[in-house]
């Protein structure tokens, strides 16, 4: 590196305070009053914030001093535009991924499983990100794609490099290296002014050239680097200093010879090397992370109260614990500066756009349409509620047994119902799904189109993608493209109301990287549990540690590629350095239990372990484990029970007391209201009501119903049942139908013909494969069996199919004898005449599954198939002379038949219903949900289940109904 750098000095410091007193502050003050540029380059904005805060503390106003991070520095010299060749835009990671993914899938196309090369491309396809990171490391380390040890990787990344080049982009690390390695041309524009480079450690090797390029375009340099460890197990930091000496053509001078022994340096030493002392370290342990944060908050308050000047709280990353502490401090009215990332959800438009991409990625599934719906609703693009949309989709799925939206399109369009129409409208907006391959322009155009159709705002920062589109005319695999589009949508949005942002305060929530190189009165190291930090990052399999060492031995550039060992060591050293810059006390905090896995006991991390060890814990009884647990402090739980909670609790408990009848707080209300439900009770509901009143309550008394959210699942049973009923109704429907709904039973042959026709039609709807065959085979067998069975019954000749009970139909309840209006649709009714009055009828129910038998006794005891009893009762109310009800099942002759005479026994349980309607007290008998049965009634999400034993006890108590004794439900 030939050097033309202007006046420069290179200093090595061990302690931030020393650096500030003897270098930084003088440097900052010397510029005073002149209208002149000056830059301070620090590792992260954390240091910038810290330095500014110190300026405030010591009343040092600044004019013309701009604080830069390496990233911002890069922007500056790039903007200068003095590069030899025309400045090319640096390609972003999103586009690189797009390129890489495409290249991979191109390579995979011709290959079959097991072919040579297939394996590697397949693996790479599953993990391009890491490979890309490694590539980035290579570039930053002064290597190129050609240095990948794996031949195929070399090959594909070289191709990627060409691709990038042809599209007219550049790699930012390469740009930086070029600009950083040679001196800037003399006549070139310069940034000029004074520069102070402060606290950049070897960790920032990846950014070195960005800074170097900046430095080369300025006049007057002062560089202050952390002094290397005495016995660095690794010479990284030594080489780092040499690197700067080369750049500046200056040899480094150390000006604070040794670390002072007061302060917390010894605590750091405990971890970094032998010796050291736990003197100024303190450990606080909470039972859970939440408790730990409460302890931290209290400690901070206490420290402030005792005059702490500058407390740094070190988080491994921004996480739940961090946000919790923010809330706790804000609640205590403690002023603090928060330097950690926070994020909120992006605007609705963006979220809709994400959902849209998801929809196309899934190939247009009903489920994804439903995911979109609430958003469309929020945007006022649809008026139908979620429940309606769900119903429509459910129906579509049940009939078509496919998750795809497209096949249902015709049917949706055809429908006249408003809900269906709206779903159709949206479907038309969204469809068709995207083809297998697309050009970027087409993809963008499609996406813009849908955006404008839903009038969504075009997202920010797409110009780069658009620019790319104009350059690249190739076809890309659609999934890859969709991923790329998604990556250009912001995942988060800035937080509108976050305390501690952009403030100066005596408490700073930060991270090791952002805090290192600053002086603190106290540092608090939170979440000091093993497995949380220090984190050990294993290298990917694309560029292993061995590969890295091997490449480093070529000494291409001084620092080359970091191995995971080196990374770990740098982190450790960073912590020690920060300890050395802590004047009074280091406080470690940790938790004993992890919320996610309450069973998993957490251990202290390695640093804390060493502290405990140095305190002699190892030799005491119970050893470290005990010492760690002993450090635990309980948090005084503030939750004093308020009256309101007490009242609430009374209700909660009341609902769960077996010795307490159902009351207004348990599915009961004014009889006037319960006695006249929101709808005529369908027979089906009556059946379920006696086995579990909850259903009656929600469905009929409140008239509300559950909106399912589960993914659609195929159910052969259900599908066959539904179809068979439809098919038989069609086949048995008379030509002419009277207003009572009866007509003459068609000839068996004709009925069979109709059935066969519609069966054939059905087959066409199904995939032409074993799945379709299997389904169709059973469908045919069942429906033909049942049809034949119908003609073996001697009854008729009048018939009515899928006949709804007329409005005047009632059921006489056992008990008060109340005549309750009932509704329902009977599969088939055979009668000796046209109409009800005086007729002899057989009510037939087609059963396609289950082997229940019809018996008055069982029905009367357990209420099973009560529905059929209800039909018979209702038919009776219509004035028939004689009547029976029976079940028809395939491959079975006769499964019991009830006649009017059986009704008193069969309908015994309607007495329950009677009591509910007259007293207004319903209650519930919902069975416990177990691994084997969860067929119980689905309560609202918010309702924590109550043991059925308790419900039965309450029920017996309420209704004095011994039949409701336990075991009813199993």
């Amino acid at each position, binding site marked *: 590196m030939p050097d033309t750098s202007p006046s420069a000095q290179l200093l090595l410091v061990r302690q931030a305070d020393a650096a500030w007193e003897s270098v930084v502050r003088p440097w900052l003050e010397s510029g005073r009053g002149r209208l002149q540029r000056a830059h301070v380059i620090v590792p992260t*904005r954390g240091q*910038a914030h810290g330095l500014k805060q110190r300026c*405030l503390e010591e009343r040092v*106003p600044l004019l013309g001093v701009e604080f830069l*991070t390496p990233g911002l520095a890069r922007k500056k010299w790039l903007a200068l535009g003095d590069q030899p060749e025309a*400045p090319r*835009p640096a390609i972003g990671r999103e586009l690189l991924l797009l390129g890489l993914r495409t290249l991979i899938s191109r390579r995979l196309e011709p290959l079959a499983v097991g072919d040579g090369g*297939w*394996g*590697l491309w397949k*693996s790479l396809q*599953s993990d391009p990100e*890491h490979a890309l990171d490694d590539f980035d490391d290579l570039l930053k380390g002064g290597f190129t794609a050609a240095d990948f040890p794996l031949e195929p990787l070399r090959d594909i990344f070289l191709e990627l490099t060409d691709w990038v080049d042809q599209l007219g982009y550049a790699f930012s690390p390469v740009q930086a290296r070029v600009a950083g390695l040679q001196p800037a041309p003399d006549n070139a524009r310069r940034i000029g002014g004074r520069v102070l480079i402060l606290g950049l450690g070897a960790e920032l090797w990846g950014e070195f050239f960005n800074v170097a390029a900046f430095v080369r375009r300025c006049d007057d340099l002062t560089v202050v680097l952390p002094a290397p460890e005495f016995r660095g197990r690794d010479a990284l930091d030594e080489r780092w200093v040499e690197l700067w000496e080369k750049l500046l053509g200056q040899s480094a001078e150390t000006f604070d010879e040794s670390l002072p022994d007061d302060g917390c340096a010894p605590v750091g030493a405990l971890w970094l090397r032998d010796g050291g002392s736990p003197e100024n370290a303190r450990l606080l342990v909470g039972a859970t*992370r939440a408790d730990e944060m409460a*302890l931290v908050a*209290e400690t901070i308050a*206490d420290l*402030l109260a*005792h005059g702490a000047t500058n407390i740094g709280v070190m988080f491994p990353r921004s996480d*739940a*614990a961090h*946000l919790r502490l923010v*809330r706790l401090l804000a609640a205590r*009215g403690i002023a603090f500066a928060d330097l950690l*990332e*926070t994020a909120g*959800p992006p605007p*609705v438009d963006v979220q809709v756009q994400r959902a849209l991409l998801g929809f196309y990625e899934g190939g247009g599934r009903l489920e994804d349409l439903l995911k979109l719906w*609430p958003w469309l609703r929020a945007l006022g693009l649809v008026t139908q509620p979620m*429940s309606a949309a769900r119903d429509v989709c459910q129906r579509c799925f049940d009939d078509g047994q496919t*998750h795809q939206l497209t096949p249902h399109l015709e049917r949706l369009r055809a429908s006249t119902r408003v809900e269906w129409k709206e779903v159709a409208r949206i479907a038309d907006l969204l469809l068709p799904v995207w083809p297998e391959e697309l050009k970027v322009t087409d993809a963008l155009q499609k996406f813009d189109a849908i955006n404008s159709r839903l009038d969504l705002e075009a997202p*920010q920062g797409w110009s*780069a993608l658009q620019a790319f589109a*104009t350059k690249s005319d190739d076809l890309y695999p659609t999934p890859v493209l969709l991923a790329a589009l998604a990556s250009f949508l912001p995942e*988060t949005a800035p937080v509108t109301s976050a305390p501690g942002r952009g403030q100066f305060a005596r408490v700073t929530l930060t991270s090791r990287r952002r805090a290192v190189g600053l002086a603190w009165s106290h540092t608090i190291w939170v979440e000091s549990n093993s497995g949380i930090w220090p984190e050990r990052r*294993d290298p990917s*399999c694309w560029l292993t540690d061995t590969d890295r060492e091997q490449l480093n031995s070529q000494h291409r550039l001084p620092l080359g590629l970091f191995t995971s060992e080196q990374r770990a060591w740098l982190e450790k050293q960073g912590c020690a350095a920060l300890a050395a810059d802590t004047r009074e006390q280091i406080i470690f905090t940790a938790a004993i239990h992890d919320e*996610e896995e309450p069973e998993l006991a*957490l*251990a202290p991390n390695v640093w804390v372990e060493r502290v405990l*060890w140095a305190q002699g814990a*190892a030799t005491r009884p119970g050893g470290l*484990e005990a010492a760690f647990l002993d450090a*635990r*402090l309980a948090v005084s739980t503030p939750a004093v029970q308020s009256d309101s909670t007490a009242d*609430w609790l009374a209700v909660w408990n009341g609902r769960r007391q077996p010795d307490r009848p159902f009351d207004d*707080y348990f599915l009961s209300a004014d009889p006037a209201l319960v006695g006249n439900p929101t709808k005529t009770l369908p027979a089906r509901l009556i059946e379920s009501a006696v086995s579990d009143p909850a259903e009656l309550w929600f469905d009929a008394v409140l*008239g509300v119903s559950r909106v399912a959210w589960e993914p659609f699942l195929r159910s*052969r049973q259900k599908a066959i049942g539904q179809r068979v009923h439809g098919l038989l109704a069609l086949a048995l429907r008379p030509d002419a139908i009277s207003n009572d709904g009866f007509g003459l039973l068609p000839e068996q042959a004709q009925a069979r013909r109709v059935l066969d026709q519609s069966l054939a039609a059905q087959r066409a709807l199904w995939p032409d*494969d*074993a799945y379709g065959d299997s*389904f169709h*085979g059973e469908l*045919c067998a069942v429906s033909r069996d049942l049809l034949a069975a119908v003609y073996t019954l001697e009854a008729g000749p009048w018939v009515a199919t899928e006949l709804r009970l007329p409005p005047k139909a009632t059921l006489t309840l056992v008990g008060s004898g109340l005549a309750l209006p009932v509704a329902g649709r009977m599969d088939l009714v055979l009668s000796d005449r046209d109409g009800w009055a005086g007729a002899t009828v057989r009510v037939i129910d087609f059963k396609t599954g289950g082997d229940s038998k019809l018996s008055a006794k069982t029905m009367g005891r357990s209420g099973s198939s009560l529905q059929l009893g209800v039909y018979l009762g209702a038919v009776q109310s219509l004035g028939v002379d004689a009547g029976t009800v029976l079940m028809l099942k395939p*491959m079975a002759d*006769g499964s019991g038949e009830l006649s009017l005479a059986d009704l008193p026994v069969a309908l015994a349980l309607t007495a329950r219903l009677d009591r509910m309607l007259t007293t207004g007290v319903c209650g519930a008998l919902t069975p416990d949900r*177990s691994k084997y049965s969860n067929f119980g009634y689905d309560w609202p*999400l*918010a309702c*924590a289940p109550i043991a059925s034993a308790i419900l039965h006890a309450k029920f017996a108590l309420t209704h004095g109904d011994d039949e409701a004794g336990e075991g009813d439900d199993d």
Partner: protein
Amino acid sequence: MTEPLVDQLARDRFRDEWNRNFAVSANAGSGKTTAISERLAALALAPDGERLLARTAVVTFTRKAAAQIGQRARQVLLKRLSESGRTDVTPLDHLERAFFGTIHSFCLKLAQTYGRNLGINLNPKVVTESDSDEDDALWEEFLESEAMHFHALGAAEVNAFLRHVPLERVFDLARQLDTNTANRFLTRPPGPMPGPSLAALGQIENLVPKQKRSLPAVQANQRLAVEWLRRFREEDGFLALAKPQGTASGIKELFDAFYAPVKAWLADAAAVLAGELAGRYRAWRFERGVQTYADQIDAAMAVLADRPTLDRIRAEGWRVILDEAQDTDPQQFAVLVEIARESGAELGSWPDERGEGPRAGHFCLVGDGQQAIYGSRADITNFTRHLDAFERGDGGELLNFSVTFRAPHAVIDCLNATLPAAFGAERDHNVGLPAEPEAPAPFLQVPYEPLAAGAGNAQGLVARLPLALPDVAPNTVDGWLAEEVRQLANWLNAHGPAGVGARSWGDICIIAPRNDWLLTARKTLEAEQLEVALQMRKNRNGDNPAYAWVCGLLAVMADPDNLFEWTGVLREVFAVSDALIASELRRCGSFHWDEPEQHPEPLAGALAALRPLILRFNDEGWPLELFASKLDEAGALAAKALAVDTSGAVAGELERLLSQAAELGLQGEGPRGWLQALLEQREGGRPAGKPSSEAINLLTAHSAKGLEWPVVIPIGLWREIGKFSGHGLKVVTDRSVGPRVYFDDASMPADLSDSRERERLRENVRLLYVVLTRPRQGLILPWGHGFGGKPKEASFAGLWGGDMDEIPALSKDSPRATANFDVAQESTEPAVARPFDSLTADGNGPAKMFPIRVLPHQLAEHVPDLSRSSRHESGLDQPLPAKSADEAIDYGLWWHETMEFFPWTRRVEEIDDYLAGRLEVGRGLGIEARGSEDLRRLRSSKAWAELTAARWTRQAELGVLAPLDEVSWMDGVIDLVLHDPSASEVWVVDWKTNRRRAGESDDALLTRLVSEYTPQLRAYGVSLAEFFPDSQVRCLIYSTAVGHWIEVES
């Protein structure tokens, strides 16, 4: 130290001889965790411990166990270090290099490290739970994307199969097949399909019922069979196998015989179809990027199957310590063995084919055959195979840890006296069926290892709690159990914990082999006013009140039309009476959450509490964590959670959910995302039930494994332990035949189901061992002669044998707790954090000493200066707004950068040249056109003349940190400052690239900019005045869209 343990030598060897292989057979409570830790510590202290440990894997069953071993090992090491007075703790770093984890995570690691050439998914999404919703949805997707054409069977066979069995039955089978089994099945095509057994038909037809009343049924069944055969022969439509009515005169068996040939064929065909489908499903999963646990093992196997890779791995010299070996699935076991062997060793050739075993010091297993209770997934014979190998010195040596540090002397004596028989060959179920008639029956049970007491074990006691026969015998087994627990509860209530030798209720653990037994027990105990802590591996998430409340609340906010969920929230979270809910719903037909006052209290209050959250449900930039805590407040959830469960378990769950929300929020998820996550996990389960000193513990024998309590009470000793009999096609692995599919239980060969039943009993014997070895102090056995009806062989008592009546009855003055309980849980009550008395308002007082930091670019209300904040250090790592009112960030950035280095005073050519370069950059960003337009405007603007005038010294991007007034400092960067010392003038220029709004005139735009950005410009002005006291400061806003600047009155 007292005199050495009887097995001290074994323990020392295992610790010190880390360059040898050992199989350790460790009795219950023999402290194997510590033993493994000791060995690891020894490794760490070895000369090249770092290298050794970097390639050491400690594999065990649960993450928890793994974590514990890791922690214990470090602790042991530190102890050793300080004993040896060493100050250098680097050996501790070595331990950090070792792998501690479950077998699955280790397989994943293997795949990720070595699988790059093998087409292995390197970062899969792992589906942990089979038959979870997630799993079902996945399968649906697969069905949707696959056309169901089969190639493994001919069309004729496929049709023949589908004629009798719905394809779905094959699906269920396919989903549970592992790769090996699937491939095996593919190699066994069935022959042509046979018909039913006519002989059996004959018997059916000749059937004459004993009692008249069963005549109709018999006749119906005869018709059924005949008709079925007719259809089978004459028709070709779908024909399910018929079920006979009733069971009269052995009709069921006859039908089984009738169908036997058909069923056998169908099962074989199903096996092949399932095999093919399983393969396709696996391939599809791969494409889809998801992995099941089985896939992870497959992936690892694939790695090993690749010779060069295998040799590479072996060359790296992995060392494996496998814990809980007896419960390890044979395949997983194989993975661990193979990587520890010499390069070149034949795959799978050890131990059976007597190939070279693992390299010395590279493979250890620790386990206890007596505690093998997971036959479903592990195969005990696989474990014993390896144990035997080590015993005969093949691959290593066998060590026995017979000393238990847990079981009290009384229990040890009792077990050593009774269990040898229970594990012995005299019991039929402990031996297998002889291969040939004459051959000796093979002994298949694990031999019993006598227990020896450690130094500190308690005397303890074993006692029988006599059960009295109730006057009226309960009519159900469950009734009997309830009766037993009732009598137990009476005893406990009468004598307190001390009545069984415990100090507190929490010292007692009641154990049963089945979950539903525990539910009965809980019900009864609670009825008797005893507090219990039922600890289950899995409790349905949706059943936890906290989970339910949050779910419900989010659901109504996500969809306020959802009246159903509303009713749930109102009654449950806000204790509104159902009566009120009903009447209001009738009155209004809905809830007016947006105008709560329409409703009476408490309904109105509830709605009012939620209203603000509903309104902000979709808000941009409102952190989910904040939303969650507001939700918590609105429903007063925390207080309620604590109220319903004082043990804090529910409150803990709430905590978990809140932090889950926080984490999701940081990834940009909003409330909807949270709801989605909750719904997806709702059917899932998590361990629940917290031990507490006031509550009696209830656990299943399986969950109790590895734990201990002072006093253990096994219940239902008399009760038969039933088997779960699934229905439909099932895979059964028979030693001789290997895996095979059977149509149903009935079609399984007699001796196969017999030997399965024996294995089941053997496992229950081992389960009994686990139960009996849990106590540290007392073992209390509720028992009464004839209680629960006649003795059952398959009950714990039956399997135990011996005469329970001989065990001394528990009397209230039976020997009490003698030895010290130091149960190694954190029983020590934590100190309460010292109250920070000094903590008052002055907690935040001193902090005020800091002036307020004013960031000018944020002064503009609603429209912060984005192009500035995105370049100001204070704005770094903060996401930029996804859409800004009317300013395009990337354009703003480009413009400011262009202005920053603008060569104002240079010759026109230079300026042109510079701008050409900038526009080039602009093209890359797709903003070239707008850029050149605005530049043209600038150069032809009035401002241009001033900007380029010679009188100025210029400074672009001028950073300023200076006091604005007493309480605030400005921290900002000014776009451009012009200074003319002679005229003592300072001009501040601020570039604005805001777009013109629809139909906005020049003046309108300019005035808008002034109104929006005045505060920012003023701040600049004021702060500059500080540095140029005697100059006059003017502030100008230049609008690129207009091409003019306008002055801001300071």
